[in-house]
């Protein structure tokens, strides 16, 4: 069955992963900008990274019949260096008109610091000024609850931000209701240890009847599985889901959200 991988850091993956994802039914991959695993030394490093995900990765994906899209930002892990963050944010507008750029992301918080929050709000301002969709990263593990609340509160302070044009990713059982009840979209990330397992993701989908939720592998350079989405689709069938419902959450939901960018044709 066809599916969309709405959150994959393919610059970290080998080319064989593209082939395996294509064989599993992947039609499109969306790549948010993120942390490289180390702090980059200058904004020039981000300029090259933005070129990589807007120019090179779409070509690598196309070899396997997969469409590639991306989101742009500086990750909150690098937001403590305010000068660097400002320089990187100044680069973003020149890339926004490129055909595969869906919006601003994955912005958010990491350790819930004041500087992270300031840089998050500046990114939201860029999105508001340029009419961009927003993809939000919520913090890891013990920091997620607090960070999610801070993020939702900050977003609600922007009168020009429509919650239906914002997806807040990496939700779990203790944050999903707060996100959806405020009108935002929610993303569930399927990780072997942290975040959600397929079984828990399916529980959350069933609890919220599949509304405004997508699932993703968030595959990157860490412990992660680029086939987590099709494996969860298989688990859904074993849990009694019809093909139509599997298709709804693996295709319709992410496509519906990303079509709002005007650049996502599927």
């Amino acid at each position, binding site marked *: 069955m066809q599916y969309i991988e709405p959150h994959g850091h393919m610059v970290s993956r080998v080319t064989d992963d593209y082939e395996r994802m294509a064989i599993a039914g992947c039609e499109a991959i969306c790549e948010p900008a993120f942390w490289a695993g180390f702090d980059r030394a200058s904004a020039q490093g981000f300029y090259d990274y933005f070129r990589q995900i807007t120019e090179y990765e779409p070509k690598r994906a196309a070899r396997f*019949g997969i469409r590639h899209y991306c989101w742009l930002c500086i990750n909150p892990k690098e937001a403590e260096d305010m000068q660097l963050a400002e320089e990187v944010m100044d680069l973003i507008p020149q890339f926004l008109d490129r055909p595969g750029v869906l919006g601003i992301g994955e912005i958010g918080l990491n350790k819930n610091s004041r500087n992270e929050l300031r840089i998050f709000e500046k990114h939201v301002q860029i999105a508001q000024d340029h009419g961009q969709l927003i993809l939000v990263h919520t913090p890891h593990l*013990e920091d997620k609850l607090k960070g999610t609340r801070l993020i939702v509160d900050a977003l609600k302070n922007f009168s020009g931000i429509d919650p239906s044009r914002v997806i807040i990713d990496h939700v*779990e059982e*203790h944050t999903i209701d707060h996100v959806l009840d405020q009108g935002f979209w929610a993303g569930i990330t399927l990780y072997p240890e942290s975040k959600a397992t397929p079984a828990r993701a399916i529980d959350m989908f069933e609890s919220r009847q599949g509304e405004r939720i997508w699932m993703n592998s968030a595959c990157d350079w860490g412990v992660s599985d680029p086939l987590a989405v099709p494996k969860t689709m298989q688990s859904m069938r*074993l849990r009694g889901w019809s093909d139509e419902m599997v298709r709804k959450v693996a295709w319709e939901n992410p496509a*519906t959200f990303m079509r709002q960018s005007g650049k996502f044709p599927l």
Partner: protein
Amino acid sequence: MPVRPVMSDMTTKWEPPQTVNLVDLGFMDARSKLIDLAAFLDRVERAGQQGDFRVQALRRAINCLETDKPGRAREVLLSFSDPSTEPIPQALTQGAVGAWKGE
């Protein structure tokens, strides 16, 4: 790139899944994880490391399973979470460890 047939853009209305035997599907996995948890607690105690705040957090989280009401996963996650509401002055680390250490 070749154009492939794509799905309808209609928003499909939610329909609940067919009833299946969830115990058949999940019991052995849950049993395995519970035994692993028990063995972990035994292991860290033998090593004298049961005082680590993460082990203490695990033991508190286990109490969340005693309730008869649904919402256990949410309660476990809440028990591991930082309950404060104000941003911290500065991020001194970049990682998370899985349990809130306290103020």
